[in-house]
């Protein structure tokens, strides 16, 4: 009986380790482990498969976002549909925006891209290349210009010229820098002034390699932007991006997109089932 207990302890620890190594965080890992122990009490000698099945179900339950998805697709009556992209430095915003521009262009939309990162070296040049690859138009100003002014111009130009989708790139920023978060709030207000109802979608681009700090990022960007969802980039690496589990639990934010590479077509709509499978692989 004691070897059975020790085996069980060992199996539970292995499973808990896998979850923590997937970056789900200690709290979620403990919740799942407790559920497993409960399951083991009531079911005699389950197979490893059954245990993984319990974990799978737990993860999917934890990922059920209570918030209904917003305008999932641009609708004619709100045109142009405005998407605001934000996130910390280097998370993959500009590249992800390029992928989204391509996605909407393939669906037949006329896409406008706004280069509201006026700070980082060659940010506009980088975005211009993505816009060109996606077949989108670009609005930009000189480096050092007011980002809110560029965002305003992009939305206004899109309205005047009949674009149906506007994608706004912003500069990477640490969520703990109040002045930079205020700048983001200002961009949002100005965009709303340019077009009532805009931004229709505010997306946080998260790097899948980030650890528990992602929760803090999501919280603070959500406070400023009332996020509609998350674009999880770089899932083609070995990081599992499990930190979206506590984010979904705590903030109810859905993951909308996955970035699966550095090419313009390396984008997938989020599927909780496939995501959980990859996490348990």
């Amino acid at each position, binding site marked *: 009986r004691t070897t059975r207990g020790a085996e069980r302890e060992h199996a539970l620890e292995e499973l808990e*380790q896998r979850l*923590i*190594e*997937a*970056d789900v*965080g*200690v709290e979620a890992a403990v919740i799942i482990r407790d559920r497993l122990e409960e399951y083991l009490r009531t079911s005699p000698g389950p197979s490893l498969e059954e245990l993984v099945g319990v974990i799978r179900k737990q993860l999917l339950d934890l990922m059920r976002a209570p918030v209904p998805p917003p305008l999932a697709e641009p609708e004619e009556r709100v045109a142009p549909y405005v998407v605001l992209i934000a996130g*910390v*430095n*280097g*998370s*993959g915003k500009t590249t992800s925006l390029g992928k989204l521009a391509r996605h909407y262009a393939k669906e037949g939309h006329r896409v406008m891209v706004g280069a509201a990162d006026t*700070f*980082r*070296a*060659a940010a506009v*040049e*980088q975005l*211009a*290349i*993505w816009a060109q690859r996606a077949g989108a138009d670009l609005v930009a100003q000189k480096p050092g210009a007011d980002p809110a002014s560029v965002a305003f111009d992009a939305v206004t130009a899109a309205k005047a010229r009949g674009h149906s989708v506007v994608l706004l790139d912003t500069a990477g920023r*640490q*969520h*703990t*820098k109040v002045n930079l978060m205020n700048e983001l709030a200002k961009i949002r207000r100005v965009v709303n002034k340019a077009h009532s109802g805009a931004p229709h979608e505010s997306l946080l681009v998260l*790097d899948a*390699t*980030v*650890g*528990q*700090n*992602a929760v*803090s990022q999501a919280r603070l960007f959500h406070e400023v932007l009332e996020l509609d969802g998350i674009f999880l980039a*770089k899932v*083609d*690496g*070995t*990081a*599992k991006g499990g*930190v979206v589990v506590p984010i979904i639990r705590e903030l109810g934010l859905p993951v909308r997109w996955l970035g699966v590479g*550095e090419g313009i077509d390396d984008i997938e709509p989020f599927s909780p089932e496939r995501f959980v499978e990859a996490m348990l692989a």
Partner: protein
Amino acid sequence: TLTARLEDIFSKLQGKGKLDEKSVREALREIRLALLEADVNYRVVKDFVARIQESAVGEEVLSSITPGQQVVGIVYRELVRLLGDEAEPILWKGPMPLVIMLVGLQGSGKTTTAAKVASLLKARNKKVLLVAADVYRPAAVDQLRILADQLEVGFYRMDDVPPKEICTGAVERATREIVDVVILDTAGRLHINEPMMEELSGIAAGVKPRERLLVLDGMTGQDAVRAAQEFDKRLDLTGIIMTKLDGDARGGAALSVRAVTGKPIKFIGVGEKLEDLEPFHPSRIASRILG
């Protein structure tokens, strides 16, 4: 805070006798939690906690501080010891020019850090050449060129040739022009991308950089070790630069990567400006990890 949580556990000890095994075990659970929340690697945490257990159990309870503070002290000192010495210096000794190669995952801060290192060395009166060896990312060459112009340091680029040739060409030019330091900015890549990792080995074989530094994002979670180990295996890194520590990331990846590779953390990035590079201080990172 961790100290407060440990105070609760030890409140029954009342400042006499020894740190008993049961209280220490409870304390270790809290310490383990704090380290995992700080993104320290699971296995590194396991080894670390085992080490603390050994040194804490049976310790005389000091009368000058609370047992909770005493245990935090033990943990803190062990963290500092593990994180390694104060900033190990740049490897100047050897043939000139000194070639510094920066590598790492996508978006970790290599290009910006290349310019920061250039700025630091220029301030020390070194003649610097920044090399744009990222031929993949849109406008990567422009990005580095703009930074090089801002700093008024040498800049090297070449179109339509592979990165290895760019780097060997740069070192040839640096040798002719008696440049002190050549800094190679390489493209971000996944450690599981075989041809891209081969490319790095090829560059290293071609120009034999004396400094091979991994630029690691300070917010990296459990994946830090996987990536660091692979880069280390291919290149035998001489050090690590941890970036973006100006946010509220606890930076546990620093401990993980140091513990697993044994390589020194030489600098930390603390902002987007070119002067935002600091030498590594284990004491500060230890406090940060402990929260």
